[in-house]
């Protein structure tokens, strides 16, 4: 894990006990996690943070939030975080404090980071109908079965649920089913690595 110069500067200030006493450090960490995970407009109006220069406070707040996000993005373990923060001259106790807070919020952080981006549609259900064609305007008699398939789909990008409908012949459906089985099998094979 690597931090930018700005974030490192913020963490150096955070590690300075003259700048941030212990209580202020803890409440700033809480504020950083809260502003990322709950509501970003939560201010820095904790009574423990009253005595600190607002510029320094905002700098440290941004640095802490950056470090939290970066650690979540890299899926950093405790040792990586500690090495990174040791570079910023933090003492053991503060690093430990950060790590416990991070572990506590790790799941929420992962959910937050996982919800950024796009994903293809998810099929949630299938319904089908068998129909039998007798004739069409081109052919006098066709006498062919065909399947009408509806895929119920969940779209995580927009939250809507449009359905995918198509019709196919027996062979096409068999082909589709075979391919899906192949996919499932290769997934299972991947689990046995």
């Amino acid at each position, binding site marked *: 894990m690597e931090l930018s*110069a700005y974030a490192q500067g913020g963490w150096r200030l955070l590690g300075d006990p003259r700048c941030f006493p212990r209580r202020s450090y803890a409440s700033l960490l809480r504020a950083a996690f809260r502003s990322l995970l709950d509501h970003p407009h939560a201010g820095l109006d904790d009574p423990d943070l009253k005595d600190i220069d607002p*510029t320094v406070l905002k700098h440290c707040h941004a640095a802490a939030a950056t470090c939290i996000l970066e650690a979540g993005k890299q899926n950093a373990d405790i040792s990586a975080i500690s090495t990174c923060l040791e570079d910023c001259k933090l003492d053991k106790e503060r690093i430990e404090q950060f790590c416990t807070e991070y572990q506590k919020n790790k799941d929420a952080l992962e*959910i937050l980071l996982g919800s950024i981006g796009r994903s293809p549609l998810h099929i*949630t259900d299938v319904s089908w109908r068998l129909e039998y064609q007798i004739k069409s305007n081109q052919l006098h008699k066709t006498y062919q079965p065909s399947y009408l398939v509806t895929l119920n789909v969940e779209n995580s990008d927009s939250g809507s649920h449009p359905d995918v409908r198509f019709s196919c012949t027996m062979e096409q459906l068999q082909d589709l089913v075979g391919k899906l089985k192949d996919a499932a099998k290769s997934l299972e094979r991947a689990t046995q690595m």
Partner: protein
Amino acid sequence: MEEVDKILIHSLRQAGTPVPPEVQSVRDLTPELVVEAAVRCLRAVRPALGAPLSPLLPPGISARFRLASDLAAACQELGFGGDVGYQTFLYSSEHDTRRLLLFLVEKLPRDESERGAEPPGKSGALLRAIGARIQEQLGTPWVPPACRTARLQRLQGTGQLRPFVTCPLVLPQSGGPPELQEYFGGAAPPVPAQPPLSVGTPPSLLEAHATQLSARHDWEAEWGGPGLASRLPPQEYVGRKRLRARLRALEPLRQACPPRPQGPPPGPLDPAWLQEAFGAGGVGGFGGALPKGSRFTRTQHLTHEQDPQILLQQIQAAAETLHPSKSPEEDAGARRAGEEAALEETLARLEAEIEGCRGEVRDAQLSLTQAEAEVRQGRLVLGGREDALRLKARAVELLPDAESNMAKLQLVVEASSRRIVSLAGQWERHRGPLLAEYRHLRALRDSAQLESSRRLSEIRSLHERSRSAAAEARRKEELYKQLVAELEALPRDVSRAVYTQRILEIVGNIRKQKEEIGKILVDTRALQKEINSLVGKLERTFSVTDELLFKDAKRDEVVRKAYKYLAALHENCAQLIQTIEDTGTIQREIRDLEEQIEGETSAKPPASLDRILSDCRELREENALLAARARHA
């Protein structure tokens, strides 16, 4: 034996038996522990055999017997060659227990060593992690997005994804102009609150961080390479590079932009402005902006010349041509098209007029410059003629007194040539030291340059070394982490090391013992040899004495007595020796017997006998109880 016991107990612990730490040898194992260890090993070796057996010894005696007999049968089925029965578990002797447990531990599957043969390294670990994750996902059923708990949200994703939308952030920092400090300290919102939508906070922060990091990496690469070679301080280097980039960016602009014949143009296409804009904003995107801008300026020019009515129309037309999609649909299409056509016609006409005017202006300016050039040339010619006129006038003035004037002129010429010579001498006088100083300074500069280039190469090699060291450190860190992970995945290796160490220790001990045995053997042999030689000497001495005495015995009475005593002495000595030998054998036998007794006592026969008796009593009681219950029923 202690080493073997330690290894055995270690293996039992690995198989899942909670052997307490104070137990150090097989002798200390209680029957409960022996049964549990045997069952756990059986379950690990062959689950079908071990599954129906309980690892806990039941309190009832008959149930105990049944379990122990089942265990014994299972062990025999596994191929245990020795004598095994319920007594092996319940009234165990140390020796039998050790043999049985050794057999079971030998049979334990070595799955850990198989796992060690998997592809090591990062890709293997990654594949395993992916496999585990997929397995976890396959194991959980699908849940509608609204009902997902936090754990399910991590597995199956949240209900709604947010796009990666970022916005520029203002990062508060100490230092800088006081106005900025005032803003940071007062009105500036905290950084996570800056994006207008709360979903934009994490992407914006991540983007800002990635930008800073990549900028730092770029700068390090730049400064490490051409930056150091330029021998400039960093700020100056950056300034020069910026200037070069600006010039390079402006060059195509100058070529693309036609030279303006008018005076200072009022539009935004001022070259100074452009320079500023591109100097600050970088190189990108000027190609597309140029034609649009020029059209806009043209429109602006028009507005200066037209009355407000047309001006308004022009602005509308410009707006419509620039943003045709913005105009609403409610306008009647035909009317709009007509209007548009008329306006465009007007525009085209006006543009043509402007072009015409511009051409005229250009022509006029061209003729103006031509005329100016002609005037300048005329003035030059005039100046030359005036000079010639002045010379001739002086000559005419000097003409009447030609002789004396010639002499005067000659004097003047000589004086000036003398002055030139003296000046040349002076110049030489000054020039010598200055030249020497110049040479000296040049040499100094050369040496300084040499020094600086040496330093430069040193710095560069240092940079290189530090970079390679950092890379090496990173690589080693990675390797260390990977090895630690592998080590955690292979707990077997530790025990293997312990095994090999103990085996080596045992081998060393055995070698020492063998040496000692060899020494004792050599001693014994020497002793034997000595005894043999002594016995031979004795025999010989005795036969010689015997013969001598026997010869004299016939004549002398005293000698006959002496001969008798000798015979008696010899016999007694032989008896003594015989007795000593007998004592040795008896002592050996005693020692053997003592060993046997010790072996028997170590098998704890009285204790196990007591236990068997008490168990038998309990069994009888249980039987009586059961019989009574049966009778009641």
